[in-house]
């Protein structure tokens, strides 16, 4: 049995190494919600599914299993805020629990890396799913001190829901988990064309061919710009990086003039739970630096009600 109300916090790469404000916000949110987050010392990249699985699927499983073992030693389920990390760790965890032959092969190689043995004792969770289903829009009302009043273009990304037979969260065709949750925070979701397509970063594309990645992204931004949201809301630091650096690229190279603030769900929830905007970290981002969340402070009566 894993520890209750406790998570092994898997940092991944882009959040701690590019957007630490998302890390700060996640810690704030989870601790306020009553969870303890444990450090996963000596963890590495998940490793990213688009690139490393393509190079060597077996080594990808071994490296993922090494990270899973760190959480198993902490007796805690993993919490991630990244779709790619979720994709890798959830998939390998599930696969090795079910496939004895692969588990034995992976464990044999894990011995070369140190004192690791995959036992299959934990689960892997994504913060959007914890917030959306475990806390829920009905539960978050008890914890928020203010609501924002903004229109958001919500980007689900790829690995959170797909492949659905492995994720088993909800349909990837018409999901509503994020819309339902953030509505309780005052967000109005604005639908846009091809909303559920990739941002253009994943699958090893951004690392391999920046032009192809930007072609896909330009289409995404065109569709978002048509509905003029106040913010772009994501649930993945890699998508976050794409929306941030991609807008900057299109402005500089394709005569665009985008300045949409890019907000991860942890940043939004942290703000609504009372975190100062300074720690939300928009001042460190490329886009929407001057954006003020604003919104409506809840009075005591409203909080009680």
């Amino acid at each position, binding site marked *: 049995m894993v520890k209750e109300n406790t998570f092994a916090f898997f940092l991944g790469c882009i959040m701690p190494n590019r957007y*630490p404000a998302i*890390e*700060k916000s996640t810690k704030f949110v989870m601790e306020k919600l009553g969870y303890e987050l444990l450090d*996963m010392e000596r963890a590495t*990249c998940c490793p990213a599914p688009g690139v*490393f699985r393509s*190079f060597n699927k077996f080594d990808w499983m071994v490296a993922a299993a090494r990270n899973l073992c760190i959480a198993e030693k902490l007796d805690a389920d993993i919490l991630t805020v990244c779709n790619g990390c979720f994709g890798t760790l959830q998939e390998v965890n599930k696969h090795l629990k079910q496939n004895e032959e692969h588990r034995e092969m992976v464990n044999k190689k894990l011995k070369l*890396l140190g004192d690791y043995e995959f036992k299959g004792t934990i689960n892997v969770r994504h913060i959007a799913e914890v917030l959306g289903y475990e806390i829920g829009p009905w539960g978050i009302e008890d914890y928020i001190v203010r609501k924002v009043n903004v229109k958001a273009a919500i980007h689900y990304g790829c690995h959170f829901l797909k492949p659905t037979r492995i994720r088993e969260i909800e349909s990837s065709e018409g999901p509503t988990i994020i819309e339902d949750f953030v509505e309780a925070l005052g967000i109005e979701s604005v639908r846009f064309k091809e909303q559920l397509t990739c941002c253009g970063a994943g699958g090893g594309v951004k690392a391999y061919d920046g032009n192809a990645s930007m072609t896909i992204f330009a289409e995404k931004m065109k569709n978002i710009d048509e509905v003029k949201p106040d913010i772009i809301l994501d649930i993945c630091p890699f998508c976050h990086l794409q929306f941030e650096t991609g807008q900057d690229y299109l402005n500089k190279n394709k005569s665009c003039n985008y300045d949409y603030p890019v907000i991860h769900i942890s940043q939004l929830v942290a703000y609504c739970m009372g975190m100062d905007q300074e720690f939300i970290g928009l001042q460190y981002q490329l886009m929407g630096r001057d954006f003020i969340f604003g919104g409506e402070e809840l009075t005591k009566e409203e909080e009680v009600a």
Partner: protein
Amino acid sequence: MELRNYATKLGNISPNHRAVVGYLKNFGHAVPINDEVRKRRVELGLEELPPTAFKFKQEGDDKDLKKIEEYMFDLPPVKEEKKEEEES
């Protein structure tokens, strides 16, 4: 996926993707930290380095990354014709 793995085994892997493997072996991350983000982390009240394998390497304990370098994602050398293309 099998085809992609096979192509890699034959050495058909882009220089950019080779670099990502190098980052994993050197830093434990596909996207390594930089000085600017180290500073931001401190400003936000976080530890300057996250407690991942790279932090331990910085503190002189590089056993994790040495093992990853030795045993994981062993790529074939760059093909001669590719090397020429990359150098030209």
